[in-house]
């Protein structure tokens, strides 16, 4: 974070992050949109270093609090977008318009995004432990047998 003379603001970066996530990482997603979101988020994360704190007090400094929150939110947002981009299937609230079917062979797994400091998070997977509810097609249209 910058002492003085910075060009970035917490509110400005946060607004861009929110807009990007609303637009590309909601329920309906696409490879194209998520690629754009990942690029924007990487850019926002590098610009985050240029945020200036205007509140220099030591008492209940919400300017600092919000700046720290934004840093964490950007990391989470990037983990979400990168994992969604790597998951080339549709499942639950992750609906890929370019991969409409569920693919249990490849993706009946938890996505794990590994923190990589300034680098893009690495996405890996771990097995799902299935207990009582077996995976199946969730079809509420009435047409499914």
């Amino acid at each position: 974070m910058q002492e003085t003379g910075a060009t970035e603001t917490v509110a400005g970066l946060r607004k861009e992050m929110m807009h990007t996530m609303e637009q590309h990482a909601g329920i309906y997603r696409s490879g194209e949109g998520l690629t754009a979101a990942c690029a924007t988020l990487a850019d926002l994360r590098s610009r985050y270093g240029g945020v200036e704190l205007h509140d220099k007090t030591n008492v209940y400094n919400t300017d600092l609090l919000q700046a720290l929150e934004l840093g964490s939110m950007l990391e989470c947002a990037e983990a979400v977008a990168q994992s969604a981009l790597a998951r080339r299937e549709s499942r639950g609230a992750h609906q890929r318009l370019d991969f409409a079917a569920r693919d249990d062979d490849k993706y009946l797994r938890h996505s794990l995004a590994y923190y990589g400091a300034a680098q893009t998070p690495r996405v890996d997977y771990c097995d799902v432990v299935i207990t009582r509810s077996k995976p199946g097609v969730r079809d509420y249209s009435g047409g499914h047998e």
Partner: protein
Amino acid sequence: MSERAIELEVLRYNPETDREPAFQRYAITCREEWVVLDALNHIKENVDPTLSYRWSCHMAVCGSCGMMINGEPKLACKAFLREYTGVIRVEPLRHFPVERDLVTVIDDFMEKLKRVRPYLMPKDVKALEAGEYRQTPAQLNRFKQYSMCINCMLCYAACPEYGLIPKYIGPAAIALAHRWNQDSRDGGRAARQPEIAATEGAWECSFVGACSEVCPEHVDPAGAIQQVKIRSTVDWYQEHLMPWLKK
């Protein structure tokens, strides 16, 4: 969506640089559907990032954004700007020390809340495998209203008794103690009585009723306090007229 110009007069205080709190005016353009919290967020984002206040949910659930708005204790997220004319005066919650700007020191309330043990002290302790503690809708109705408290402390800011006698345990703490006392699963009343039936408990209340008027969740703490008074009166008579009946 219609927009209009408004002015807010916000009490500012920075303990590191200010000797005493002072008002600062902000002139902004607001939208018709905004609440005071939206206006504060707009100021923090676009005008003055040093303005400090607590908030979280923006939907009257978390109880963080209690403040005085034109002299009345309100949740900033529930106070619509369209209901005010002229300059809107925003101050920290009355009766609490100011930490910074609109942020108050809430230790007194937190300590009192802890003292009344606002949690289930089971009458009959069951093993986990024995299942849930079941309750009928009628049993639930005996306390449901009092369980709606969100600990926003508006009732403390409204209560003239709390302003005069800071030791008074106060509306929300009594209402919450009463909530658990009324619970069919609970057996902790005897443990809570020393706190809420004391002089600085329910008996400090002179039934002004301001707590119930400002409560954003319609808990009616004043009603709870009067019920506690009745219960402790019955306790007193039992203890003195029928001492062989152990509480």
